[in-house]
């Protein structure tokens, strides 16, 4: 404890700076976490308000979690969620860094700005609207792709019923929408790199490739690691719209488009139940938490500097 008071005294200013944020987290995040216990309750309304409702509701143990594991779909949705996330995290990382470096290297900076702005545009469109456009490409009778296929003498494909294509479509669309946003972070990090590193490298005769390999990438590494660790925390969650709006909720391709979030959504469609949805969220959080702790532990073993805590 004495170490604590010593820190309070010595790092007064730092404590002062961390305080507002801490308060915010307490009020807006930690305080509401109280509500998580309804995941273990059969939630009933009590006339004296929410707390009375929570306290008076009956404990049901893990009953609210069962629907997540009750059928063989449990394996399928877990597999899909993890595989898509692994692909999206990995490709997202590689492409975001590549694009950031490439944009940074373009000779004409005005073009770089134009490209960068353009890549940001999909971020502004909701999945509903993007779904609308993918449909115009993939529709059986009027879709552009099928018209092209027919023009070249092929047979039209019923895209929304053929599961072979969807892993690629989903991953492409996921990356396409988010890449502008995620590459900004790396662009900023590159912009923050001290120019003298490159000057020194040039004097030593380092090639562009060597500069990227020995200066840019190592300096981006902490950011890549932290973003990856954080992304792993969300490995049991997915961007709902990507898996629901883009495949148009087509049953024929559930085997490759159903993920935990869409499963939960469909489960709740007629029996919306606060306890069950809270339970589902808690399950996703706990798994993500365990995975992050593990990753963070491994990172810490390798390089202490890059771990989150």
């Amino acid at each position: 404890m004495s170490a604590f008071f010593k820190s309070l005294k010595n790092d007064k200013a730092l404590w002062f700076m961390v305080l507002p944020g801490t308060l915010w987290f307490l009020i807006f995040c930690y305080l509401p976490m109280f509500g998580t216990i309804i995941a273990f309750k059969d939630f009933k309304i009590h006339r004296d308000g929410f707390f009375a409702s929570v306290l008076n509701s009956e404990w049901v143990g893990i009953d609210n979690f069962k629907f997540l594991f009750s059928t063989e779909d449990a394996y399928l949705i877990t597999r899909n969620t993890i595989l898509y996330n692994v692909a999206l995290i990995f490709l997202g990382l590689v492409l975001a860094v590549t694009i950031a470096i490439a944009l940074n290297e373009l000779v004409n900076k005005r073009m770089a700005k134009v490209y960068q702005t353009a890549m940001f545009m999909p971020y502004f469109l909701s999945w509903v609207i993007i779904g609308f456009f993918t449909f115009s490409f993939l529709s059986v009778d009027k879709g552009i792709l099928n018209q092209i296929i027919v023009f070249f003498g092929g047979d039209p494909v019923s895209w929304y019923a053929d599961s072979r294509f969807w892993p690629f479509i989903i991953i492409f669309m996921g990356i396409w929408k988010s890449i502008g946003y995620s590459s900004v972070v790396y662009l900023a990090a590159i912009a923050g790199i001290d120019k003298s590193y490159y000057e020194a490298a040039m004097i030593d005769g380092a090639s562009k490739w060597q500069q990227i390999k020995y200066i840019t990438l190592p300096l981006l590494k902490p950011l890549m690691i932290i973003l990856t660790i954080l992304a792993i925390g969300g490995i049991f969650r997915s961007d709902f719209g990507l898996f629901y709006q883009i495949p148009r909720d087509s049953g024929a391709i559930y085997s490759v488009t159903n993920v935990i979030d869409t499963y939960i959504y469909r489960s709740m469609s007629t029996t919306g139940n606060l306890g069950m949805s809270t339970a589902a969220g808690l399950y996703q959080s706990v798994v993500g938490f365990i995975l992050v702790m593990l990753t963070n532990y491994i990172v810490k073993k390798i390089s202490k500097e890059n771990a989150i805590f």
Partner: protein
Amino acid sequence: MKVKKSLTLALVGTMLFSGLLAGCGSNNKTKEEATTAHPSGLKPYELKMYLIGGPQKDLNLVLGEINKYTKEKINATLDITMFDWGDYDKKMQVITASGEPYDIAFTASWTNDFRRNAANGTFMGLNDLLDKYGKETKAALDPRFLEGTKIKGEIYGVPVNKELGQQWVWRFNKKYLDKYKMDISNVRTLEDLEPLLKTIKASEPGNITPLAVAKNYKPYLPFDYVLGDELPIGVYMDSKDGKVVNVLETPELEQSLDTMRRFYQAGYLRPDVATLDGIDNIKTGQWFADREITQPYADKGWSRPAGYEIVSSPMHDPYVYTQSAAGSMHGISVTSGDPDRAMMFLNLLNTDKYLRNLINYGIEGTHYKKISENVIEDLPAMKDSYAMPGFSLGNMYLTYLHADEPADKWDAFKKFNDSATEAPTFGFAFDSTPVKTEVAAINNVSKEFIPALFTGSVDPKVYLPKATKKFKEAGLDKVIAEVQKQFDEWKATKK
């Protein structure tokens, strides 16, 4: 170790704060102020009411008028909050779960579900209150409204007097009926429809959709679906023994799916029907037939906004289902500070012609003008700033008519309601709590197979067995058994 410490700290912090919060939450008892006594001896009270629909600009203006009137009648004023169609259910879920006090909320089978609200204790049972303060309302209603919406013998919502029965119809674009001189008076079943579709497909260009339906399409089958028509759990319409069956294993379904498959392969439906959320047929006019739920003078109601003539032919006789009786109701919250007054107000709303029209059409001279005693014409202000959804605001039979509406509109509604017979599970409310895991699982299976199967998009020979198998694995039989059990118990109490 650090982590463990952090966790403990976080937990302690949370607990401290929640204690603080609990102290905060319980100070919302109604304030009672002594003011001049009201002739009725009632203390002044403000009723908090939630309604569905887009918020209207002139609501406060109209509320001023309403309050003058209700103040005089029952010494209560009204505070109405409206939530948009798409937001209403979510908002009400949050408000009720958070325990925020209010008095009255719009409820139905399709939003802010009265069964959910009754099951989790949000709404008050209204049997006694209705007997005490709602006699006139009760007298004006077809008794089946109240009978059908009871849960375990208790009424949880005051129903709006409107259409009670439900009847599916085939709608037709009259242009083509005239062109090919088709007679639809005998078209009821899918098979009856087939020759007509065939003619259209053969003679009209490809952009005319013969049967313009979307993924929610279901062929009409003689079943009373206990958990909604997305889940294949039903009781035969003419059932004597009240046996709950798996609809997927019935010959009627098999036959319908074969027909639908034929339709699909013949190109009567859009090829992507299984993934279509909706279809713009009314707007484009490029369609021949679709399906819809009807009500008296519905053809007129459809034709007017479409700008061309639409006619219809029934698929079956009208039935009264629980969900059709519960199309529009008002519930009273357990958090209400004065439930008696809430019921007094609802009674007034359902029996007082002046109040009922005021809340629906706004202020005479501002929002509408009277043409005759019972007929009005909208003024521009109505469309701009006071367009209320009439069916959600109490007894429809009291409302004024528009010049283009038939004078016997409400009589026709009464007749329609009288002609409707009760479906076998009418009045039975299934409590899914004991099988919630299985219901969640079969919901998923339903979304996977039902749209594709029922629209004929896939071969039923292959996919019906597949779907049946998967439904069973998800626990369909267990759910059916539970439904049967509860249904039998319910029937026993009815005798």
